[in-house]
């Protein structure tokens, strides 16, 4: 066999996303953190902005500073983040309190773990999130009247 050149181990964009080495729960965990941080950032500003209405300042209504398409898009992203974070959060509450992971079993190869037990719940929650996202998107695009 010809001598192999030094292998370029970079996997490109696919590697950026984990290269398929990680499981779906790992990605769910990362997305849960990112959406949580996004929602918190929005929420802290949201408290200040909405509190201004006590002084009669409504920045988000027609003609206000935040009544621009870019902020509408931002709000839709917050809605999407919430839909994911909330529904994945339901799964996490059930899992982390030991309800959706199953009882200890005798490990027989090929091993089935608690990941397999909670996977249907994860899938159901993601389908629900997708439905809410579709409904929110329908509204965001101005299709609902």
């Amino acid at each position, binding site marked *: 066999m010809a001598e192999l050149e030094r292998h370029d181990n970079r996997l490109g964009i696919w590697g950026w996303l984990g290269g398929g080495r990680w499981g779906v729960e790992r990605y769910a965990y990362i997305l849960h953190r990112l959406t949580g941080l996004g929602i*918190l950032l929005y929420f802290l500003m949201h*408290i200040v902005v909405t*509190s201004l209405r*006590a002084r009669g300042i409504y920045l988000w209504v*027609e003609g206000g500073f935040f009544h621009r398409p870019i902020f509408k898009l931002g709000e839709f992203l917050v*809605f999407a983040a919430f839909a994911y974070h*909330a529904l994945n959060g339901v799964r996490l509450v059930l899992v982390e309190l030991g309800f959706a992971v199953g009882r200890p079993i005798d490990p027989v190869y090929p091993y089935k773990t608690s990941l397999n037990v909670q996977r249907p719940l994860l899938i159901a929650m993601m389908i629900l999130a997708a439905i809410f996202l579709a409904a929110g998107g329908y509204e965001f695009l101005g299709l*609902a*009247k």
Partner: protein
Amino acid sequence: MRETKYWTWHMAAGVVIFFLLGLHMLIMHLGGTTHLFAPFGGEAVSKVNSVFRDGRLFFTVTYILLLGVALYHGLYGLRTILFELTLKPIVEKLVTFVFVVLGLGLFGLGTWAAIVVHAIAKTGARG
């Protein structure tokens, strides 16, 4: 065991937020479909619809409740993420202090605003 207490209430707060923020999102982002609590039509966030909700005690109470639990849930979550970066103990104490002050400050601001707008809306409705 202190962390057990904080984490238990972090979970409980998450469940409360699921329902209250879920309702909030149904009103604000799915209003065109659900037409919830926006009797004046148009955008759910329009001034007349906002004032309508501010005038109802249910909204004032749930705004304050949601404000409190969401601040706790969010800031505790961020604190967890920051602490997982292996901070120095003094930095951890500082982060906790800043978050407590920030949380209480914003809770005070939001509560004050919710009560003031409730009063304004009530007066407006009467006058």
